[in-house]
């Protein structure tokens, strides 16, 4: 292994071993030390036992993906040797608990891996409890990559702040035990060096939390959800700040109640959002149509996992795109946004609140487990460019000037002035039946066509100001990679490491506004390409099908993955080199 200042680190063991908490602490330490990072967790759907894996990628430049091969593996049980030993790159290091794990020197030698056996259990017990094995291993890791304990001690103090001075002292002892052991016993120069750099003004956050923050920045004040992996951390985060932000956060009895509660609140003028995964969204679909027909603004977040049915609840997939496009009966306008990383989730979370209210229609944000639960470093969020736009929501003074108010009055842009209950002179029926311009149930032929067209025309209006798909790489290149959502991270991470000779031949198009579809733009890009490669985390090429439907262009060259795992950087590097 060559000398480098990046690291791919993995810790594994049973659920309940503190895999994730140790990983998160290490992440924070490296962020404070001036590094960029991304983390990724693999876990089965259970609370105790099973096999949990936490991977941390540390680098000097922004990272949003994971590698297949790792530099350091921390094994807390024998099963980790069986499951993850082969993940180690040649020249990598295995840190293992000699109190629990047996490994032959031949196995290490064959794999060209250095083994650092540490009595993690003994050290942890000496520090105050076996549960701190993870913290001992954390100390060992820091020593290995030439990082000092200064930042670690501060992070530990913060992390255990609520547990009291004794627990803090024990953990400080544990991290030092691991650190000192490696300094004393491991004399080789491990090629991954991560000394403290100039710190950046970054935060470490998941796309679920950043999406919630974006929505909060743009005035979200009503959030309803039913717990469902991998969307639950939006609910948990918003619930934790509900009081501070003056937000109602409600865990309702089921997803049907969730969406209908949000619609009731939105009807009175609240800025409402719901969050779920595919299965919960399926329960909400009838009310998605209700939102569109009553022209009630609402933001619906679908954090995808592998489906159908219960599917693979804790694994990632981009399998719901066509579902989001077609969910619910009938023709109606919807807007679908697909963030590619935590930063975009923040921006689109804020945008969505405005789009929903300006166009008085449901906005769907489609994300997935990979970014929703993976944390990455992003520049601290700025809110000064977020403006609140409530569209044609009338004030009482404006309403007073209208002689005969009609909620669903036909208009050139498809959007009608809106009142909320409590306003004098603004009565109307928000009607799940087709209705006339006042909201009264009416099934007349001419009216039906007028109202359908009025609603649909809101998307034409939206198209006029909708951002085009994003282009990365050489914009004039003739080879085009087409992507959406969370694959952005791995594709850009792989792309920047390619030799210049390959890089200049490639451009990458990310479709972020999925619906309405930027058909003209996409057609132009594809028609001016010699080769096109579609990369998606699903088995059906769902964006590819949408592109074919909207442009008539069928992309034949596809890289699809649907085993519940994200693309590894090595896979994309290989595909881009071959392309």
């Amino acid at each position: 292994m060559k000398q480098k200042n990046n690291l791919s680190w993995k810790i594994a063991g049973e659920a309940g071993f503190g895999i994730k908490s140790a990983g998160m602490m290490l992440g924070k330490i490296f962020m404070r030390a001036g590094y960029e990072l991304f983390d990724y967790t693999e876990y089965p759907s259970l609370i105790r036992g099973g096999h949990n894996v936490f991977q941390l990628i540390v680098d000097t430049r922004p990272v949003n993906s994971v590698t297949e091969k790792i530099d350091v593996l921390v094994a807390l049980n024998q099963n980790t040797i069986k499951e993850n030993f082969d993940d180690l790159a040649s020249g990598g290091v295995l840190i293992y608990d000699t109190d629990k794990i047996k490994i032959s020197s031949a196995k290490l030698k064959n794999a060209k891996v250095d083994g650092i056996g540490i009595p993690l259990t003994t050290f942890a017990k000496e520090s105050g409890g076996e549960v701190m094995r993870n913290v001992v291993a954390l100390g060992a890791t820091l020593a290995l990559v030439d990082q000092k304990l200064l930042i670690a001690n501060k992070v530990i103090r913060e992390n255990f702040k609520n547990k009291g001075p004794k627990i803090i002292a024990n953990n400080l002892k544990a991290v030092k035990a691991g650190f000192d052991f490696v300094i004393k016993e491991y004399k080789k120069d491990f090629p991954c060096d991560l000394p403290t750099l100039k710190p950046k003004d970054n935060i470490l956050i998941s796309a679920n939390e950043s999406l919630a923050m974006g929505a909060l920045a743009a005035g979200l004040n009503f959030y309803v959800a039913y717990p469902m992996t991998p969307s639950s951390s939006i609910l948990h985060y918003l619930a934790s700040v509900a009081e501070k932000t003056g937000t109602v956060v409600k865990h309702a009895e089921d997803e049907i109640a969730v969406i209908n509660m949000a619609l009731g609140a939105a009807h009175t003028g609240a800025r409402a959002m719901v969050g779920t995964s595919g299965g919960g969204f399926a329960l909400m679909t009838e009310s998605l149509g209700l939102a569109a027909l009553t022209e009630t603004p609402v933001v619906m977040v679908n954090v995808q996992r592998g489906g159908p049915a219960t599917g693979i609840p804790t694994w990632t997939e981009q399998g719901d795109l066509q579902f989001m496009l077609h969910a619910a009966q009938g023709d109606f306008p919807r807007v679908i946004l697909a963030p590619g990383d935590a930063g975009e989730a923040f921006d689109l979370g804020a945008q969505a609140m405005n789009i929903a209210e300006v166009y008085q229609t449901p906005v769907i944000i489609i994300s997935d487990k990979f970014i929703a639960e993976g944390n990455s470093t992003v520049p601290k969020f700025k809110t000064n460019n977020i403006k609140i736009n409530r569209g044609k929501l009338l004030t009482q003074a404006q309403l007073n000037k209208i002689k005969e108010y009609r909620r669903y009055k036909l208009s050139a842009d498809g959007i009608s002035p809106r009142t909320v209950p409590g306003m004098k002179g603004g009565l109307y029926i928000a009607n799940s039946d087709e209705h006339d311009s006042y909201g009264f149930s009416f099934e007349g032929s001419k009216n039906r066509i007028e109202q359908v067209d009025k609603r649909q025309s809101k998307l034409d209006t939206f198209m006029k100001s909708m951002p085009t798909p994003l282009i990365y790489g050489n914009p004039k290149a003739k080879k085009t990679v087409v992507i959406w959502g969370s694959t952005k991270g791995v594709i850009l991470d792989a792309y920047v490491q390619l030799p210049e000779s390959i890089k200049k031949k490639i451009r990458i198009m990310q479709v972020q506004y999925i619906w309405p579809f930027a058909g003209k733009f996409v057609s132009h890009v594809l028609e001016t390409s010699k080769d096109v490669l579609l990369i998606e985390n699903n088995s059906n090429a769902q964006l590819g099908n949408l592109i074919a439907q909207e442009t008539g262009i069928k992309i034949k060259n596809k890289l699809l993955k649907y085993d519940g795992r994200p693309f590894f950087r090595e896979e994309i590097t290989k595909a881009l080199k071959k392309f």
Partner: protein
Amino acid sequence: MNLKDFETNYKPTWCPGCGNHAIWIAMRGALAELGLKPENVLIFYGIGCSGNGANFTKSYTWHSLHGRAVPSAIGAKLANKDLTVIVMAGDGDAFGEGLGHFLHAIRGNADITYVVHDNHVYGLTTGQAAPTADKGYKAKSTPAGIIEVPVNPTSLAVTNGGTFVSRGFSGNAKHLKGLFKQAITHKGFSFVDVFQPCVTFNKINTFEWFFDRVYNVDDDATYKNTDKMAAFGKTQEWGKKIPYGVLYKAKRDTYGSNLPQLKGQALSKRKITTRNLDKLTKEFA
């Protein structure tokens, strides 16, 4: 305020003699007598004959999906506590599609009024047995008679933590109006199950059938409607004698009343501005 202030230009499309007419009149009368203004009243309707009432009563109105009026009403009341929020649903709405929402709404005790048009049949879909139909009731979808025993809505409400559990009868509109007034002014989830005979499809549970059986609980001087066990007993009476009126009353905090973020001005009336996130981002730094 009078009846006319709560009337739209649309005339009811219910069958002549339908029990819904009395509910419509009684509700408008109650709203007028309570001095409420149409713009401060928000009524949620389900789907069915009862739901068609959305077009006939003048107020702010939400015509929901089948079975889903209750959660929307709770959401609206949380967001704007200044509104008088009422739900009008049918027995299929309330106890078929929406039974789960009913039970959870009772638990939460949101300050809304829930009126169920209970006639034991699905009127708008031509007379199939509703969840409140008596065992053995024969209809198009159950030609040999329904096998299940009926849902007992008032029993469910009492045992599940209800704070205002009542029954009304379309054959006594004056009493019904009084009941609605009490229900609307009750702090918490007020439930009014209204016997409202379907004159077209239900040839068994007719006005006559009910007139022969119902009695007003207020006429029973020994009955105390604050005694939960006694109330449960009352809700179990069925057959020769069927009680109506306020069967049970209790005091409990209303949903959301203890949320610090809902103190002061109603949520929906607060100006929406860009939130500063400097404090919130600290935990991620």
